């Protein structure tokens, strides 16, 4: 078994209103940045998986991402990085 490190990025689907993103965007001009648009706030999930190989680990992460880490109705999910520990 090898331990693989994954990072999973979960974001609201484009087109869905993202109130948290809007709140951040509305606050940026107060700090002097008035040239920023389309701010979206998502989630970052980091995890280690023990698996025989990277393909098996990735297949498991794909399934976990679809069944728990994200809600496919409202969110997109992307697996960002994988590294052997």
């Amino acid at each position: 078994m090898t331990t693989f490190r994954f990072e999973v990025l979960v974001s609201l689907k484009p087109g869905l209103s993202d109130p948290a993103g809007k709140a951040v965007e509305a606050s940026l001009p107060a700090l002097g940045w008035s040239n920023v648009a389309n701010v979206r706030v998502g989630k970052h999930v980091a995890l280690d998986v023990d698996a025989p190989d990277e393909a098996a680990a990735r297949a498991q992460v794909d399934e976990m991402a679809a069944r728990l880490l994200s809600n496919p109705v409202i969110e997109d999910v992307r697996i960002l990085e994988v590294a052997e520990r």
Partner: protein
Amino acid sequence: MSDRAPRIGVVTFPGSLDDRDARRAAATMGGDPIALWHADPDLRGAEAVILPGGFSYGDYLRAGAIAARAPIMAEVVAFAERGGPVLGICNGFQILCEAGLLPGALIRNRSLRFICREVSLRVETAQTAVTAGLTPGETVRIPMKHGEGQWVATADQLARVEGEGLVAFRYSSPDGIVDEAHNPNGATNNIAGVRNAAGNVVGLMPHPEHAVDPDVGPTGGQALFASLLQAALAGAAA
């Protein structure tokens, strides 16, 4: 009417808040409330199940996401698939959506604000466990109190929900006008609650369990609980 009090199971998850009010409302309306715990292996003979409001598991990950995978939920899903009446209120509605028992999802209110006030709901169908005693088009007045109650769905889900009459309640004016002025949280098509195809599973964001006692506010929740109790008895008889 039956002289027997139907057993109404109310599931308490860590972080549930309105479980006690739900049990009290069930008792006020003539039911026999059964306290269930998220780790329970069975429903202790409940003839209807309520998933109450609150912040189960701190709303970690997404509202209702962890609770939807709690041990008791396998029993709730099986009960629902057998046709048992299941009502999700607020966080309970979020849990039912996360569990795949109801279509759509709940995201943060359009205003970004937690909203706590009375609302009017227009009943859209009598084909649910909580609206069988109501008439489509009539309104009920009950409180809402949530930060993440904006119902959204994929285009396919929305087409199915509207096309098959799965909308149970819409936010409206007291006389039943559904428009943007009476949409408190930005919910798609003013949808406040939905049902499954069979109608035995229904969820809504506002709180009928807080609206059964005339001493403390509106009583719009009475009719919903009365219907749920009847559905529980009917299910047991079937």
